[in-house]
Protein backbone atom coordinates (compact mmCIF):
# COMPACT_ATOMS: atom_id res chain seq x y z
CA UNK A 1 0.00 0.00 0.00
CA UNK A 2 1.40 3.35 -0.92
CA UNK A 3 1.20 6.22 1.53
CA UNK A 4 0.98 9.84 0.54
CA UNK A 5 3.59 12.19 1.96
CA UNK A 6 0.84 14.03 3.88
CA UNK A 7 -0.06 10.87 5.81
CA UNK A 8 3.58 10.16 6.50
CA UNK A 9 4.13 13.63 7.85
CA UNK A 10 1.14 13.37 10.16
CA UNK A 11 2.47 10.07 11.47
CA UNK A 12 5.89 11.59 12.02
CA UNK A 13 4.29 14.37 14.05
CA UNK A 14 2.23 11.94 16.08
CA UNK A 15 5.13 9.73 17.10
CA UNK A 16 6.63 12.79 18.76
CA UNK A 17 3.35 13.75 20.47
CA UNK A 18 2.04 10.40 21.67
CA UNK A 19 3.46 8.80 24.80
CA UNK A 20 4.15 5.10 25.09
CA UNK A 21 1.43 4.93 27.79
CA UNK A 22 -1.13 6.04 25.18
CA UNK A 23 -0.44 3.16 22.79
CA UNK A 24 0.84 0.25 24.93
CA UNK A 25 -1.17 -2.83 25.87
CA UNK A 26 -2.06 -2.52 29.55
CA UNK A 27 -3.14 -6.03 30.39
CA UNK A 28 0.14 -7.88 30.38
CA UNK A 29 0.41 -11.66 30.36
CA UNK A 30 3.36 -12.73 32.51
CA UNK A 31 4.95 -16.02 33.57
CA UNK A 32 6.99 -17.04 36.60
CA UNK A 33 10.55 -18.44 36.29
CA UNK A 34 9.38 -21.96 37.28
CA UNK A 35 6.98 -22.23 34.33
CA UNK A 36 8.16 -24.81 31.76
CA UNK A 37 8.90 -23.96 28.15
CA UNK A 38 6.18 -26.49 27.21
CA UNK A 39 3.57 -24.52 29.19
CA UNK A 40 4.94 -21.24 27.84
CA UNK A 41 4.52 -22.57 24.27
CA UNK A 42 0.82 -23.26 24.98
CA UNK A 43 0.38 -19.85 26.58
CA UNK A 44 1.90 -18.02 23.61
CA UNK A 45 -0.20 -20.09 21.21
CA UNK A 46 -3.55 -19.58 22.95
CA UNK A 47 -2.97 -15.88 23.65
CA UNK A 48 -1.54 -15.32 20.17
CA UNK A 49 1.42 -13.39 21.52
CA UNK A 50 5.13 -13.79 20.88
CA UNK A 51 6.79 -12.94 24.19
CA UNK A 52 6.10 -12.24 27.86
CA UNK A 53 7.84 -10.65 30.85
CA UNK A 54 8.97 -13.05 33.59
CA UNK A 55 7.82 -11.94 37.06
CA UNK A 56 8.89 -13.15 40.46
CA UNK A 57 7.30 -11.70 43.62
CA UNK A 58 6.07 -8.68 41.71
CA UNK A 59 9.47 -7.89 40.24
CA UNK A 60 10.36 -8.30 36.56
CA UNK A 61 13.36 -10.64 36.34
CA UNK A 62 13.52 -11.32 32.60
CA UNK A 63 11.83 -11.65 29.21
CA UNK A 64 11.09 -14.81 27.31
CA UNK A 65 9.89 -15.06 23.73
CA UNK A 66 8.95 -17.36 20.90
CA UNK A 67 12.61 -17.48 19.80
CA UNK A 68 13.53 -19.13 23.10
CA UNK A 69 10.74 -21.65 22.55
CA UNK A 70 11.99 -22.47 19.03
CA UNK A 71 15.51 -22.98 20.31
CA UNK A 72 14.22 -25.22 23.12
CA UNK A 73 12.28 -27.29 20.55
CA UNK A 74 15.41 -27.65 18.46
CA UNK A 75 17.43 -28.97 21.40
CA UNK A 76 14.62 -31.03 22.95
CA UNK A 77 14.49 -28.86 26.06
CA UNK A 78 10.73 -28.36 26.38
CA UNK A 79 10.82 -29.34 30.06
CA UNK A 80 13.41 -26.71 30.94
CA UNK A 81 12.15 -23.80 33.02
CA UNK A 82 11.59 -20.29 31.80
CA UNK A 83 14.02 -19.12 34.49
CA UNK A 84 16.83 -21.11 32.84
CA UNK A 85 16.21 -19.88 29.31
CA UNK A 86 14.98 -16.31 29.71
CA UNK A 87 16.86 -13.16 28.79
CA UNK A 88 17.92 -11.61 32.07
CA UNK A 89 19.13 -8.28 30.83
CA UNK A 90 15.85 -6.65 30.00
CA UNK A 91 15.59 -3.51 27.93
CA UNK A 92 12.46 -1.72 29.08
CA UNK A 93 10.89 1.59 28.04
CA UNK A 94 9.29 4.26 30.20
CA UNK A 95 5.52 4.81 29.97
CA UNK A 96 5.95 8.60 29.86
CA UNK A 97 8.48 8.55 27.03
CA UNK A 98 7.34 9.46 23.53
CA UNK A 99 6.57 6.81 20.94
CA UNK A 100 9.49 8.01 18.83
CA UNK A 101 12.00 6.81 21.43
CA UNK A 102 10.49 3.32 21.23
CA UNK A 103 10.49 3.42 17.42
CA UNK A 104 14.22 4.12 17.55
CA UNK A 105 14.81 1.26 20.00
CA UNK A 106 12.86 -1.19 17.83
CA UNK A 107 14.97 -0.18 14.85
CA UNK A 108 18.27 -0.36 16.72
CA UNK A 109 17.80 -3.51 18.81
CA UNK A 110 15.51 -5.56 16.61
CA UNK A 111 13.44 -6.82 19.58
CA UNK A 112 9.80 -7.75 19.05
CA UNK A 113 8.49 -6.13 22.22
CA UNK A 114 9.51 -4.02 25.19
CA UNK A 115 8.12 -4.18 28.72
CA UNK A 116 6.86 -0.76 29.78
CA UNK A 117 7.67 0.52 33.28
CA UNK A 118 6.58 3.55 35.27
CA UNK A 119 8.87 6.02 37.01
CA UNK A 120 9.36 3.57 39.92
CA UNK A 121 10.27 0.68 37.65
CA UNK A 122 6.95 -1.18 38.06
CA UNK A 123 5.69 -3.09 35.03
CA UNK A 124 2.65 -1.24 33.66
CA UNK A 125 2.32 -2.57 30.11
CA UNK A 126 3.93 -4.12 27.08
CA UNK A 127 4.70 -2.51 23.73
CA UNK A 128 4.95 -4.13 20.30
CA UNK A 129 5.29 -2.48 16.90
CA UNK A 130 1.66 -3.53 16.35
CA UNK A 131 0.62 -1.48 19.39
CA UNK A 132 2.34 1.57 17.90
CA UNK A 133 0.61 1.19 14.52
CA UNK A 134 -2.79 0.66 16.19
CA UNK A 135 -2.24 3.65 18.49
CA UNK A 136 -1.30 5.92 15.61
CA UNK A 137 -4.30 4.88 13.53
CA UNK A 138 -6.63 5.41 16.48
CA UNK A 139 -5.19 8.87 17.16
CA UNK A 140 -5.43 9.92 13.51
CA UNK A 141 -9.06 8.83 13.47
CA UNK A 142 -9.81 10.71 16.70
CA UNK A 143 -8.30 13.94 15.36
CA UNK A 144 -10.07 13.59 12.04
CA UNK A 145 -13.40 13.12 13.79
CA UNK A 146 -12.81 16.11 16.07
CA UNK A 147 -12.26 18.41 13.07
CA UNK A 148 -15.24 16.89 11.24
CA UNK A 149 -17.50 17.46 14.24
CA UNK A 150 -16.34 21.06 14.62
CA UNK A 151 -16.94 21.70 10.93
CA UNK A 152 -20.35 20.08 11.09
CA UNK A 153 -21.42 22.05 14.15
CA UNK A 154 -20.24 25.33 12.66
CA UNK A 155 -21.82 24.83 9.27
CA UNK A 156 -25.17 23.92 10.83
CA UNK A 157 -25.44 26.95 13.10
CA UNK A 158 -27.70 28.73 10.67
CA UNK A 159 -29.94 25.72 10.19
CA UNK A 160 -30.18 24.72 13.83
CA UNK A 161 -31.12 28.11 15.22
CA UNK A 162 -34.43 29.62 14.28
CA UNK A 163 -35.11 33.33 14.16
CA UNK A 164 -36.39 35.77 11.59
CA UNK A 165 -32.82 36.75 10.89
CA UNK A 166 -29.85 34.85 12.28
CA UNK A 167 -26.43 36.42 12.33
CA UNK A 168 -23.16 35.57 13.96
CA UNK A 169 -21.14 38.45 15.40
CA UNK A 170 -17.39 38.02 15.70
CA UNK A 171 -15.35 40.80 17.31
CA UNK A 172 -11.60 41.15 17.20
CA UNK A 173 -9.61 43.85 18.96
CA UNK A 174 -6.56 45.35 17.27
CA UNK A 175 -3.84 47.01 19.31
CA UNK A 176 -1.79 49.88 17.91
CA UNK A 177 1.74 49.04 16.66
CA UNK A 178 1.39 45.44 17.77
CA UNK A 179 3.36 43.92 14.92
CA UNK A 180 3.90 40.67 16.80
CA UNK A 181 0.21 39.86 16.47
CA UNK A 182 -0.41 41.44 13.10
CA UNK A 183 -2.85 39.41 11.03
CA UNK A 184 -4.17 37.35 13.92
CA UNK A 185 -7.69 38.73 13.73
CA UNK A 186 -7.76 38.05 9.97
CA UNK A 187 -6.48 34.50 10.50
CA UNK A 188 -9.15 33.80 13.11
CA UNK A 189 -11.91 35.22 10.95
CA UNK A 190 -10.66 33.22 7.98
CA UNK A 191 -10.74 30.00 10.01
CA UNK A 192 -14.25 30.80 11.26
CA UNK A 193 -15.55 31.33 7.73
CA UNK A 194 -13.93 28.09 6.58
CA UNK A 195 -15.65 26.25 9.40
CA UNK A 196 -18.93 27.88 8.47
CA UNK A 197 -18.51 26.39 5.04
CA UNK A 198 -17.96 29.58 2.99
CA UNK A 199 -16.54 29.14 -0.51
CA UNK A 200 -12.71 29.28 -0.60
CA UNK A 201 -12.75 32.09 -3.16
CA UNK A 202 -14.91 34.25 -0.90
CA UNK A 203 -12.84 33.33 2.15
CA UNK A 204 -9.77 34.58 0.32
CA UNK A 205 -11.39 37.93 -0.53
CA UNK A 206 -12.56 38.45 3.04
CA UNK A 207 -9.13 37.43 4.38
CA UNK A 208 -7.26 39.86 2.12
CA UNK A 209 -9.60 42.77 2.92
CA UNK A 210 -9.58 42.04 6.65
CA UNK A 211 -5.80 41.76 6.71
CA UNK A 212 -5.35 45.12 5.01
CA UNK A 213 -7.85 46.75 7.36
CA UNK A 214 -6.25 45.11 10.37
CA UNK A 215 -2.75 46.30 9.43
CA UNK A 216 -4.09 49.80 8.74
CA UNK A 217 -5.55 49.94 12.25
CA UNK A 218 -2.33 48.47 13.67
CA UNK A 219 -0.02 50.87 11.82
CA UNK A 220 -1.95 54.13 11.78
CA UNK A 221 -4.47 54.21 14.61
CA UNK A 222 -4.63 54.42 18.39
CA UNK A 223 -6.32 51.00 18.33
CA UNK A 224 -9.63 49.69 17.18
CA UNK A 225 -11.73 46.67 16.44
CA UNK A 226 -13.02 44.50 13.67
CA UNK A 227 -16.62 43.37 13.82
CA UNK A 228 -17.81 40.71 11.43
CA UNK A 229 -21.51 40.06 11.15
CA UNK A 230 -21.98 36.79 9.31
CA UNK A 231 -25.37 35.89 7.87
CA UNK A 232 -26.26 32.96 5.65
CA UNK A 233 -26.27 35.07 2.47
CA UNK A 234 -23.82 37.84 3.17
CA UNK A 235 -21.47 39.27 5.71
CA UNK A 236 -20.73 42.76 6.84
CA UNK A 237 -17.35 43.77 8.14
CA UNK A 238 -17.03 46.92 10.21
CA UNK A 239 -13.60 48.20 11.17
CA UNK A 240 -13.50 51.12 13.58
CA UNK A 241 -10.65 52.89 15.31
CA UNK A 242 -10.35 55.74 17.77
CA UNK A 243 -8.22 58.08 15.73
CA UNK A 244 -6.30 60.00 14.59
CA UNK A 245 -8.47 59.84 11.45
CA UNK A 246 -7.64 60.22 7.76
CA UNK A 247 -7.04 63.79 6.56
CA UNK A 248 -7.79 63.26 2.92
CA UNK A 249 -9.71 60.11 2.03
CA UNK A 250 -9.51 60.78 -1.71
CA UNK A 251 -5.72 60.88 -1.51
CA UNK A 252 -5.59 57.85 0.78
CA UNK A 253 -7.52 55.90 -1.84
CA UNK A 254 -4.92 56.66 -4.55
CA UNK A 255 -2.77 53.61 -5.31
CA UNK A 256 0.74 54.09 -3.96
CA UNK A 257 -0.15 56.95 -1.59
CA UNK A 258 1.05 56.21 1.92
CA UNK A 259 1.68 58.11 5.13
CA UNK A 260 3.52 55.22 6.79
CA UNK A 261 6.93 56.11 8.24
CA UNK A 262 10.11 54.61 6.75
CA UNK A 263 10.64 51.98 9.44
CA UNK A 264 7.21 50.55 8.76
CA UNK A 265 7.85 50.56 5.02
CA UNK A 266 11.02 48.61 5.64
CA UNK A 267 8.87 45.83 7.08
CA UNK A 268 7.07 45.67 3.76
CA UNK A 269 3.99 47.63 4.85
CA UNK A 270 2.93 51.06 3.71
CA UNK A 271 2.97 50.35 -0.02
CA UNK A 272 -0.11 52.51 -0.41
CA UNK A 273 -2.08 49.54 -1.72
CA UNK A 274 -4.15 48.58 1.30
CA UNK A 275 -7.34 50.51 0.65
CA UNK A 276 -7.22 49.55 -3.04
CA UNK A 277 -6.89 45.90 -2.13
CA UNK A 278 -9.86 46.24 0.20
CA UNK A 279 -11.95 47.90 -2.49
CA UNK A 280 -11.05 45.19 -5.00
CA UNK A 281 -12.08 42.41 -2.61
CA UNK A 282 -15.31 43.74 -1.12
CA UNK A 283 -18.65 43.94 -2.90
CA UNK A 284 -19.35 47.28 -1.23
CA UNK A 285 -17.06 49.64 0.63
CA UNK A 286 -17.85 52.69 2.70
CA UNK A 287 -15.07 54.69 4.35
CA UNK A 288 -15.74 57.56 6.76
CA UNK A 289 -13.19 59.37 8.79
CA UNK A 290 -12.95 62.41 10.97
CA UNK A 291 -9.60 63.83 12.05
CA UNK A 292 -9.23 63.63 15.82
CA UNK A 293 -12.17 61.25 16.14
CA UNK A 294 -11.53 58.09 14.18
CA UNK A 295 -12.15 56.06 11.08
CA UNK A 296 -14.99 53.71 10.22
CA UNK A 297 -14.77 51.27 7.35
CA UNK A 298 -17.81 49.25 6.31
CA UNK A 299 -17.53 46.37 3.88
CA UNK A 300 -20.08 43.91 2.62
CA UNK A 301 -19.43 40.58 0.99
CA UNK A 302 -21.92 38.32 -0.68
CA UNK A 303 -21.39 34.80 0.61
CA UNK A 304 -23.14 33.19 -2.36
Amino acid at each position, binding site marked *: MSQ*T*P*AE*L*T*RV*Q*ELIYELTIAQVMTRSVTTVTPDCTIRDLKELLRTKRISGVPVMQDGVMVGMISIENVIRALEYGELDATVGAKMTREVQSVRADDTVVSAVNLFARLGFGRFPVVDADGNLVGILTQGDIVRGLLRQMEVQWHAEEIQRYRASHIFEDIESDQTGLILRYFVKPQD*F*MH*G*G*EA*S*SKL*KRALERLGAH*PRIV*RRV*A*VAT*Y*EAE*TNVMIHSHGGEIIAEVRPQRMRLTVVDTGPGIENIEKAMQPGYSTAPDWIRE*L*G*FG*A*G*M*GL*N*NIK*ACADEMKLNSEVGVGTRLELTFSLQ
Partner: protein
Amino acid sequence: MTVHDIISALGLEVVAGADGLDKPITGGYASDLLSCVMAKASAGNAWITLQSHVNVVAVASLLNLACVIITEGMRPDDEMVERANENGIPTLLTPHSTYRVVGELVRLGISG
Protein backbone atom coordinates in the same frame (compact mmCIF):
# COMPACT_ATOMS: atom_id res chain seq x y z
CA MET B 1 6.50 19.70 -7.89
CA THR B 2 6.39 19.93 -4.10
CA VAL B 3 8.14 22.17 -1.58
CA HIS B 4 10.42 19.24 -0.90
CA ASP B 5 11.47 19.07 -4.54
CA ILE B 6 12.57 22.70 -4.68
CA ILE B 7 14.43 22.38 -1.39
CA SER B 8 16.65 19.68 -2.86
CA ALA B 9 16.92 21.34 -6.29
CA LEU B 10 17.91 24.75 -4.88
CA GLY B 11 19.74 23.57 -1.76
CA LEU B 12 17.49 25.57 0.57
CA GLU B 13 17.73 25.51 4.37
CA VAL B 14 14.48 24.64 6.18
CA VAL B 15 14.13 26.72 9.37
CA ALA B 16 10.44 26.20 10.08
CA GLY B 17 7.23 24.53 8.94
CA ALA B 18 8.87 21.18 8.20
CA ASP B 19 5.50 19.42 8.33
CA GLY B 20 4.31 21.22 5.21
CA LEU B 21 7.05 20.06 2.85
CA ASP B 22 4.74 17.83 0.85
CA LYS B 23 2.59 20.77 -0.33
CA PRO B 24 2.42 21.08 -4.10
CA ILE B 25 3.67 24.33 -5.62
CA THR B 26 1.29 25.91 -8.11
CA GLY B 27 3.43 28.89 -9.07
CA GLY B 28 5.58 31.65 -7.65
CA TYR B 29 5.41 35.27 -6.60
CA ALA B 30 8.24 37.62 -5.63
CA SER B 31 7.81 40.88 -3.73
CA ASP B 32 8.84 42.53 -0.49
CA LEU B 33 5.66 44.57 -0.24
CA LEU B 34 3.06 42.67 1.76
CA SER B 35 0.11 44.38 0.10
CA CYS B 36 1.34 43.37 -3.36
CA VAL B 37 1.56 39.78 -2.18
CA MET B 38 -1.91 40.02 -0.62
CA ALA B 39 -3.29 41.30 -3.92
CA LYS B 40 -1.44 39.09 -6.39
CA ALA B 41 -0.13 35.83 -4.92
CA SER B 42 -2.34 32.77 -5.32
CA ALA B 43 -2.90 29.79 -3.04
CA GLY B 44 -0.12 27.24 -3.41
CA ASN B 45 2.46 29.80 -4.59
CA ALA B 46 6.06 29.90 -3.43
CA TRP B 47 6.72 33.45 -2.16
CA ILE B 48 10.23 34.77 -2.58
CA THR B 49 11.10 37.75 -0.38
CA LEU B 50 13.76 39.21 1.84
CA GLN B 51 11.27 40.15 4.53
CA SER B 52 11.79 37.95 7.58
CA HIS B 53 9.34 38.78 10.37
CA VAL B 54 6.07 37.37 11.77
CA ASN B 55 3.84 39.34 9.43
CA VAL B 56 5.24 37.30 6.53
CA VAL B 57 3.76 34.21 8.15
CA ALA B 58 0.40 35.95 8.58
CA VAL B 59 0.27 36.82 4.88
CA ALA B 60 1.44 33.35 3.79
CA SER B 61 -1.09 31.57 5.96
CA LEU B 62 -3.99 33.87 4.99
CA LEU B 63 -3.30 33.14 1.33
CA ASN B 64 -2.53 29.42 1.86
CA LEU B 65 0.86 29.86 0.17
CA ALA B 66 2.95 26.70 -0.26
CA CYS B 67 6.14 28.17 1.24
CA VAL B 68 8.20 31.28 1.87
CA ILE B 69 11.75 31.54 0.51
CA ILE B 70 13.80 34.19 2.29
CA THR B 71 16.70 35.40 0.16
CA GLU B 72 20.02 37.23 0.56
CA GLY B 73 21.01 35.26 3.66
CA MET B 74 18.42 37.02 5.85
CA ARG B 75 17.46 34.98 8.91
CA PRO B 76 13.99 35.11 10.49
CA ASP B 77 13.65 36.04 14.15
CA ASP B 78 12.51 33.48 16.75
CA GLU B 79 8.93 34.76 16.68
CA MET B 80 8.66 34.16 12.95
CA VAL B 81 10.08 30.64 13.26
CA GLU B 82 7.64 29.86 16.06
CA ARG B 83 4.65 31.25 14.17
CA ALA B 84 5.67 29.48 10.94
CA ASN B 85 5.83 26.18 12.81
CA GLU B 86 2.40 26.83 14.36
CA ASN B 87 0.88 27.61 10.99
CA GLY B 88 2.75 24.94 9.05
CA ILE B 89 4.34 27.43 6.65
CA PRO B 90 7.59 25.97 5.27
CA THR B 91 10.19 28.71 5.71
CA LEU B 92 13.23 28.24 3.53
CA LEU B 93 16.48 30.19 3.46
CA THR B 94 19.05 30.86 0.75
CA PRO B 95 22.13 33.09 0.55
CA HIS B 96 21.28 33.89 -3.08
CA SER B 97 19.40 36.86 -4.48
CA THR B 98 15.68 36.92 -5.22
CA TYR B 99 16.53 37.31 -8.92
CA ARG B 100 18.60 34.14 -8.96
CA VAL B 101 16.05 32.10 -6.98
CA VAL B 102 13.23 33.14 -9.32
CA GLY B 103 15.40 32.18 -12.30
CA GLU B 104 16.08 28.73 -10.88
CA LEU B 105 12.41 28.15 -10.08
CA VAL B 106 11.40 29.13 -13.61
CA ARG B 107 13.97 26.68 -14.97
CA LEU B 108 12.32 23.97 -12.82
CA GLY B 109 9.05 24.74 -14.57
CA ILE B 110 7.46 26.92 -11.86
CA SER B 111 5.98 29.98 -13.49
CA GLY B 112 4.43 33.14 -12.08
